[in-house]
């Protein structure tokens, strides 16, 4: 296998390029599953490797990934590239430095199946170790479930269960949703075949980051336990429910249905996936529990029930905090500033438009016919030239010109943040803190890609005080669990001067405070640092927005802290009041000369008046804290601190 892989430079390159190009997570608008009625299969390709990044079909869609230009552009090009590859090798052979001939090599060159690739490169897909494999499996299933529900307009109701089977290192993951279900004919292909449907339905791009999907999880289970995966699905009341067990033929990348029966199922519609795998169950950081908690925060419209293995804690129920589905993100054509050369090449090859001008206008956002002509003029290309017949140098000139011409910023309606209120309420329902706030920045743009940053903050209460604050990172509602040190979010949090807001912060570190930060970057195209898509890249525009949002929350925490200090003071003031009451009544008695009985009455009345004033003060501070959480109180708070 290994030898084969080496002899297939084109393929391996493609696979690693998929990583290098760091395909972004698209917004939730992109759905894996079609609306109710079941998943439609895409035009099936041969058993061949169809990496989503390579697909030409999505090019004019919302979020085409960006492979570097030197990438063989289409399957047809592959033969050529291979042919080219032979010539130099033959030459080297003539030097006598290598023994293999091109012919001999050609004889060994053949397609590898994705499944085979997976077995060798499982770390790329999030299965590097047993603990991570468990998390990745849950994650893939949950991402799919949420996407399916949202696509069908159903408020997601998820149940995740993990049970230990046969000894220490085997677990069964069961994830059930109340989505639209899957028509029986599709079940095997969707779950039993890697990369199925990815071209048309952005299977992995919907929420997922690293996965080639649920089928990869199934394959991992199959490889480590030999057990098939079990799917139960039902598309509606009055329709039958099916239970299907399948395995994946790792050579052919084909599903193999082992059993298929109609069953009674207590749920009207939905899908349940069950995978058994070798895994390590752990708690605390990067655990399934923590992951689901974060999913709940970023998806306040979802209800999630989690049942951990026996002896690993109580079941957790994350109730939804809103009954409304997030608005569907609008699709956006690529903005010229964000398009890479390789992508432009492919877009022009596959455009439906005849002329370059029409292609620019049709396939890009913010390009009017006048702007298109301007771009052509700068590039020195006739606007009427045939779009798919441009020479590579011409495309390069066009690409350069696109960056030079002044354009409107891209439309921002395609980015859907969680929203300040929901983010805050999400935190409120997960943490027993004293203070919650959130800030959603207005949309901003990096390299032609609109994005929105939002920060939710929980402070005090049960949150551990002596530790660095917890930073939850999200990209398009998906929690990021690994590589936090490499992430722009972490950098932004450490860069903010939290000391200014009254929180201790060792130099270059996270603040030490009973605080949880939930930081969400939503974008048509979230840029990641690497193939594993676990850390957001350090674009200055993104860092800037992150810091602004964090600072806004920081200011509110500072206001809260000063208000709380006053509240505590007010509490202490009971004793304080008692100290001065005798002086007031004593001085009055000295001036007015009344008797002892009158003095007792005076003291009693004073106690009443001052205690009432203390309670009023306390309430005012509480009101102020409440208004600070939403940001409404900012002006009032500042006035108060001036006074």
């Amino acid at each position, binding site marked *: 296998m290994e030898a084969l892989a080496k002899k297939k430079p084109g393929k391996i390159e493609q696979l690693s390029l998929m990583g290098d190009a760091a395909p972004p997570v698209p917004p939730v608008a992109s759905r894996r599953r079609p609306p109710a009625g079941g998943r439609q299969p895409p035009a099936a390709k041969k058993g061949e490797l169809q990496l989503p990044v390579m697909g030409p079909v999505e090019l004019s869609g919302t979020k085409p990934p960006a492979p570097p230009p030197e990438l063989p552009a289409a399957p047809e090009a592959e033969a050529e590239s291979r042919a080219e590859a032979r010539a130099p090798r033959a030459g080297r052979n003539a030097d006598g430095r290598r023994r293999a001939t091109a012919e001999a090599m050609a004889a060994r060159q053949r397609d590898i199946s994705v499944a085979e690739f997976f077995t060798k490169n499982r770390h790329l897909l999030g299965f590097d170790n047993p603990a991570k494999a468990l998390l990745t499996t849950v994650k893939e299933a949950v991402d799919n479930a949420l996407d399916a529900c949202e696509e069908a307009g159903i408020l997601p109701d998820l149940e995740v269960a993990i049970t230990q089977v046969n000894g220490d290192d085997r677990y069964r993951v069961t994830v059930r949703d109340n989505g639209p279900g899957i028509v029986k004919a599709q079940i095997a292909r969707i779950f039993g075949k890697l990369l199925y449907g990815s071209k048309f339905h952005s299977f992995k791009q919907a929420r997922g980051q690293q996965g080639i999907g649920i089928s990869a999880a199934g394959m991992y289970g199959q490889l480590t336990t030999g057990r098939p995966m079990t799917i139960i699905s039902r598309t509606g009341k009055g329709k039958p429910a099916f239970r299907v067990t399948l395995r994946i033929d790792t050579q052919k990348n084909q599903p193999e249905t082992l059993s298929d029966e109609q069953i009674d199922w207590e749920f009207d519609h939905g899908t349940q996936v069950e995978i058994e795998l070798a895994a390590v169950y752990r708690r605390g950081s990067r655990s399934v529990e923590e992951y689901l908690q974060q999913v709940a925060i970023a998806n306040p419209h979802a209800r999630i029930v989690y049942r951990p293995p026996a002896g690993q804690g109580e079941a957790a129920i994350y109730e939804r905090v809103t009954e409304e589905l997030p608005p569907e993100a609008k699709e956006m054509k690529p903005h010229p500033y964000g398009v890479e050369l390789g992508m432009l090449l492919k877009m022009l090859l596959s455009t439906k438009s005849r002329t370059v001008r029409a292609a620019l206008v049709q396939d890009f956002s913010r390009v009017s016919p006048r702007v298109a002509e301007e771009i052509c003029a700068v590039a020195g290309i006739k606007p009427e030239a045939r779009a798919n017949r441009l020479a590579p140098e011409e495309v390069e000139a066009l690409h350069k010109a696109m960056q030079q011409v002044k354009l409107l910023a891209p439309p921002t309606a395609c980015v859907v943040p969680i929203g300040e209120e929901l983010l805050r309420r999400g935190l409120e329902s997960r943490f027993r803190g004293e203070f919650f706030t959130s800030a959603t920045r207005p949309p901003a743009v990096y390299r032609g890609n609109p994005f929105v940053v939002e920060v939710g903050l929980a402070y005090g209460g049960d949150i551990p005080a002596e530790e660095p604050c917890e930073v939850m990172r999200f990209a398009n509602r998906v929690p990021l669990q690994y590589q936090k040190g490499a992430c722009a979010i972490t950098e932004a949090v450490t860069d903010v001067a939290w000391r200014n807001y009254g929180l201790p912060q060792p130099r270059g570190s996270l603040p030490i405070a009973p605080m949880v930060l939930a930081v969400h970057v939503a974008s048509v195209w979230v840029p990641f640092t690497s193939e594993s898509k676990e850390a957001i890249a350090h674009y200055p525009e993104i860092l800037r927005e992150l810091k602004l949002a964090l600072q806004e929350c920081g200011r509110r925490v500072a206001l809260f802290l000063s208000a709380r200090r006053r509240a505590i003071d*007010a509490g202490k*003031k009971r004793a*304080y*009041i008692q*100290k*001065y*009451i005798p*002086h*007031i009544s*004593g*001085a*009055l008695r*000295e*001036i*007015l000369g009344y008797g002892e009985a009158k003095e007792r*009455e*005076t003291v009693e*009345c*004073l106690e*009443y*008046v*001052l205690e009432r*004033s*203390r309670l009023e*003060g306390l309430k005012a501070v509480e009101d102020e804290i409440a208004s600070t959480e939403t940001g409404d109180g900012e002006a009032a708070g500042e006035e108060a601190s001036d006074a």
Partner: protein
Amino acid sequence: MPDRTMVQAIRKAAQGVHDKILARRKPNLKFPLRSLQNVRYRPSVGFFELLGRMKERTLTVGTVKTFAQTLRMMALSKNLVETDDIATKREAYYVSKNWGEARFDEQPESDQVMEDIEALFRVNREQIGFIPEEKGGEVAGKLTVIDKDRDSGKTLKIDCTKFGSGAYSIPISVEDLGFQTDARFILAIETAGMFQRLVKHNYWKQANCILVSMGGVPTRACRRFIRRLSDEKKIPVYVFVDCDPYGIANIYRTLKVGSGNAAHVNEFFCVPKATFLGITPQDILDYKLPTHPLKDVDIKRAADAVKNDPFIQHHKAWQDAFSKLVKMGVRAEQQALAKHGLNYVIDEYLPQKLAHPERFLP
């Protein structure tokens, strides 16, 4: 002789507070706001007049300590008035050390409360038994002060020409003093150094005048002394200070029209007739005086005076003088005249200026 009306006023205020408390409502005390924002310059009477803005001290958790201190201070004051005793500001501060938790930690706190009470009753602090620590200023020249011997009650005549190289000290209370003089004018001087020079050379003899050393911003007693003297003897008052925003806007202005802080008693503690002899910004040019650059704080004070001081705002001549000074960017001290000779001020500067009192700044 206890001041019955004062005692009654204190009782009345205390009664109001007590009634509110017994009605289980928050008692409050209202004080006139003592600041330049709450005064108006009335040219017809010639001093800063208090406007109606009040600050209210309502008894709440936050104000309980100050409220207790205010009442304690009122009680002390009533006591002083009833026994015809006095306490200096510093003494009052020490008395408060008996008040346990309600004591003052620093004297400025007790001074504040004292001045609040003073303003509350719109009286001079001497009337409520408190006297300042500060010296009232010094006098030398053609003046006989008529005072009484404390023990015998016999009239004392104090001849201010007979202090040699020393001077007569203005007492804290000047209300009962009488004056005899045939001097032509009163010269109020900012610094003790300049006063000493003029006394040493018996300038008062040569100019037939009364010299008063203010030692910075004149105290209330000093203002009152000059006021009564100039009113009763109908003699003009000329002011001789440094040419800088402090000399003009603080020393001269306070002498002439009073201060924001003591607005409730300005009527008595000001000298509306005073005029400004020097040193003027023009003098710096005319006499080619050595100067120092204006400090940031000077520039700020000048801007503040032009913007917020009702007296400076009223007089175009002062507005112009300030803008000239700021434009020149320098200040000059009285002693700068020594550049032309130590006695230049006696031989040349003052005679030249006094030849044209009509040219003095208002």
